[in-house]
């Protein structure tokens, strides 16, 4: 690999721009072959949802995201990694989270991006509360068992590869 991995980790209320974030990580480089991005957006749940309110644990959110990125860098030959997670009130159609991975080869970029999202979902201290279109404050979004399973498959993969 040519030098250290470029990384950007952000926890912010403001929206982000996909193109700007990808540019930050890849501009001027000629050794990157593959860039994968994942953007998570707020859905309106067939019109029922007016917004999501994202609460986070300041300090731990950044730390935990850095630890997840560390782990991805250890597992895959990455050249650049960006992770941004928003907090505050987010409307349907707006972005919530962004993961960008860059590598010489596509499989590393795809796997690392998928891993980062699975781990962010289960380890980064963020919580979603629903605000409903009828003006009422809905409930806290419940964690999904399939998200835990998605994260666990990476542990199984590691155990297997070490086996």
């Amino acid at each position, binding site marked *: 690999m040519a030098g250290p991995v470029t990384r950007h980790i952000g926890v912010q209320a403001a929206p982000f721009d996909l193109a700007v974030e990808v540019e930050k990580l890849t501009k001027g480089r000629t050794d990157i072959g593959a860039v994968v991005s994942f953007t998570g957006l707020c859905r309106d749940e067939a019109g029922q949802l007016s917004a999501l309110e994202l609460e*986070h644990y300041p300090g731990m959110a950044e730390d*935990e995201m850095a630890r997840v990125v560390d782990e991805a860098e250890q597992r895959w030959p990455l050249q650049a990694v960006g992770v941004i*997670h928003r907090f505050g009130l987010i409307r349907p159609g707006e972005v919530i989270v962004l993961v960008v991975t860059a590598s010489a080869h596509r499989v590393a970029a795809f796997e690392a991006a998928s891993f980062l*999202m699975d781990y962010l979902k289960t380890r980064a201290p*963020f919580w979603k509360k629903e605000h409903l279109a009828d003006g009422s404050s809905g409930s806290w979004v419940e964690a999904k068992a399939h998200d835990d399973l998605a994260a666990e498959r990476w542990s199984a993969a590691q155990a297997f590869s070490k086996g």
Partner: protein
Amino acid sequence: MVKLVYFAWVRERMGMAEEMVELPASVVTIADLALWLAGRDEGAALAFANPEVVRAAIDKHHVSPQTPVKGAREIAFFPPMTGG
């Protein structure tokens, strides 16, 4: 004195975002602390009604219920995370 911080519905049920507490000697682990907090009032009892659901962090690192609280400066309790 240790700082306790709460998030999401744990925060709502506790009725506060954070507090400073002096832990009794009987509280050795995170599980002990949750049990002790649950005995304080109705809101706390509700927050820890299913203690196995509530997650914890010490000094901004995830920990298990069996983790000792000794030496902690900040202990957080929160529901399973739903970011991403």
